[in-house]
């Protein structure tokens, strides 16, 4: 097991290196020039050139990539072209809101979607099943920003129960923290709930048709025990896999959700950096996202051993 973990962790190094090369090359080839953005409307071409030179953007591709890669290898993500702040500081400032949003969304989604999927499978073909599936279709179909606006209108502007926007750090207390996250988490969780509920239902339907379930029933096991102990544990592997894949959805969705609810997280940092062509920030954030994604996949793989004892690494 440990050997497997170490192998997987080491395998992230070439993955990250490829991601780094890919991201750097993509930004190099993409249109846009931070020097032109900095210089602004009034700038002469000479001004733009001077700024480009002062930022080192006039150096050849390989020189720039080499310098950046060397800094990364030493743990230095660079400095923002615009704010002059270290990228690591900017990420540090923004990571808590995104992490909070993702954790709350994950907890909300899993605690709603898994029981929904189980119940829909149990009540297959009934109104409950159809309602759950209708919700799933709705969750997939309605964009996050629409859900966000509707929630903000109803629960903030009309009912005045929750704030429209912003983020309060956890250190300021649990209630102020969660107050700002309820609406964004619901908005972001919609797609996620739909995805997990559908996969849970489909997997549970397959498991519930297995012989050992019939045997459990014949032996007089209760419905709750059959569903949540015998069936769900055996259906867990695909569900957990989808939850892992969904982290990517959350990262993508966080970009929109953070904008709609003015949450100062990594999603907004990424968008702002892309619009300004703040290369060091874009590269740093994408590297971080890639690392998180690789890490989550590793954790998901490891969790299989808990749900299915036959799996050994």
């Amino acid at each position, binding site marked *: 097991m440990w050997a497997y973990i170490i192998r997987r962790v080491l395998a992230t190094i070439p993955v990250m290196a490829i991601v780094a090369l890919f991201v750097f090359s993509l930004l190099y080839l993409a249109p846009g020039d931070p020097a032109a953005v900095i210089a602004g409307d*009034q700038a002469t071409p000479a001004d733009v050139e001077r700024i480009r030179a002062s930022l080192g953007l006039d150096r050849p591709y390989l020189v720039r990539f080499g310098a950046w890669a060397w800094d990364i290898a030493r743990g230095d993500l660079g400095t923002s072209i615009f704010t002059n702040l270290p990228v690591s500081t900017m990420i540090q400032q923004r990571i808590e809101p995104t992490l909070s949003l993702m954790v709350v969304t994950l907890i909300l989604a899993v605690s709603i979607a898994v029981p929904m999927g189980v119940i829909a499978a149990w009540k297959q073909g009934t109104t409950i099943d159809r309602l759950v599936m209708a919700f799933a279709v709705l969750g997939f179909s309605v964009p996050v920003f629409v859900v966000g606006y509707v929630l903000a209108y109803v629960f903030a502007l009309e009912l005045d129960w929750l704030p429209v926007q912003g983020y309060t750090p956890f250190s300021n207390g649990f209630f102020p923290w969660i107050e700002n996250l309820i609406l964004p988490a619901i908005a972001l969780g919609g797609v996620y709930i739909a995805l997990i509920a559908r996969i849970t239902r489909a997997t549970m339907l397959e498991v519930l048709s297995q012989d050992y379930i019939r045997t459990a029933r014949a032996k007089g096991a209760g419905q709750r025990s059959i569903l949540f102990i015998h069936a769900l544990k055996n259906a867990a592997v695909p569900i957990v896999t989808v939850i892992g894949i969904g982290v990517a959805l959350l990262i993508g969705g966080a970009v929109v959700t953070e904008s709609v609810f003015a949450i100062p997280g990594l999603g907004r940092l990424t*968008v*702002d950096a892309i619009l300004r062509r703040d290369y060091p920030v874009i590269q740093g954030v994408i590297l971080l996202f890639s690392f998180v994604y690789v890490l989550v996949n590793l954790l998901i793989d490891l969790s299989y051993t808990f749900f299915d004892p036959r799996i050994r690494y």
Partner: protein
Amino acid sequence: MNISRRASLGGAATLLAAPGLASAQAAARTLRFIPQSNLASIDPVWSTAVVVRNHGLMVYDLLYGLGADYQVRPQMAEGHEVSTDGLTWDIRLREGLKFHDNEPVRARDCVASILRWSKRDVLGSRLDALGEEVSAPDDRTIRIRLKKPWPGLAWALGKPSANICAIMPERVARTDPFTQITDPTGSGPFRFRRDLFRPGDVAIYERFEAYVPRSEPTDFLSGAKQAHFDRVEWRIMPDPATAGAALQNNEADWWETPLPDLLPLLRRNRDIEIGVVNTAGNLGVLRFNFLHPPFNDVAVRRALLPAVNQRDFMDAAIGTDTALSVVPAGVFTPGTPLANDAGLEILSGPRNLEAARAALRASSYAGQRVVMMSATDLPVLQNLAEVAADLLRRVGFNVDFPAMDWGTQIQRRTSRAPVEQGGWSAFCTTWEGLDVSVPGSHQPLRGNGAQAWSGWPTMPRLETLREQWFDAPDQAAARGIAEEIQRVAWDEVPFIPLGLVRPPQAWRRSITGVVRGGSSLFWGVRRA
């Protein structure tokens, strides 16, 4: 004023807790402001972004300040003396001026600041060219010796448009003009808390207790800059709907750029006031590339004039509320001293699409592809570009209208290549009204070829008139030159003015004393 449910609950809780009361009082002394965009940089000399300029006007003081009548008055300066030959200016600093680190403002700080600014700003570059010497004979005197007289020097030092001549401590002002500063020490009425700065989220300013306001009443950027709030928080909200909801929900006090689409909604809220703060507005501009066909032919540019309907552009840019735009607009900002009617009937007379088509047919235009650039992420510019592209098509141009974001557009604008090699033909933008109110800082009117603004026209007549304006002995002479510039502009068409946008701002009625004239300012304003 309506009291919200959350506020009532919050109020009840406040009564139960003394610390909560203190917190509520602190909140009352805090102004929550939603700026037009993210404050990415803190250096108003390095960056030309309007939001950075606004930041600069809070943190830094200027030697001179513009009044609402567009005349400059001494601000940090006590006054100045100009030698009889007009070549030497001795500017005397006011007593008691301090930087935020409580060090006194000395003339040598101003000298270093002026020199840094002169390397970046359009009027600063004139000082760079004309300046024989900028020195500090003593701690309170700045001496500027010129190669030729420049009556508008005070205006240049006090102009509020980017780049402002922000006075910084000498140690900061010695930073290379093409490298941004990291130390935000200024001497303005607000101190920037860099330690609390989270770009893209919040920028916090605190009242500078040691600031000594002038004794005259507040008059835009001149007179007393009296800060009434202890703290001003710029809360960055990129989504307009969210910003609008925050204002309605009393989570913000003041929103700098409400979307025109949201104005009816905001107007229905009795707690919110809508008003035009930037009365000088922004001049819409259709700019051409003068290096390549078809717009290198003046006949092609002139052909468009009879078809341009400024009202169409303004309606698209800011909505149909005519209080939010001004047409007709000539080449100078309407309402400012040099705005005039010379030849303006070319845009204000009856529109004639057929005449435009006929003029185009008679020109050298041979159906070349015209690349009309637009920035899809900036609604006003995108809307202007949509109308312009439609106009070009209707007149008979073969229009290519690629979608791109601002970052891409501003890079592509630097390309001098023909359209086949990634170049461009035309684009729309807006210029701050104060910038284009005088020939000196009016970049779209420059005709200095390769050194000119994007498009790079070579128009010696405009350059000569600009020089004459600098030397104009009085306002009457300046006005005469401005009229002549406008006539030449209709003849050579360096750009086409599209009307003046007067963008509205929205604030809660609990806020009073908003200073009008140009950018959003934070002195004078207080909680009722």
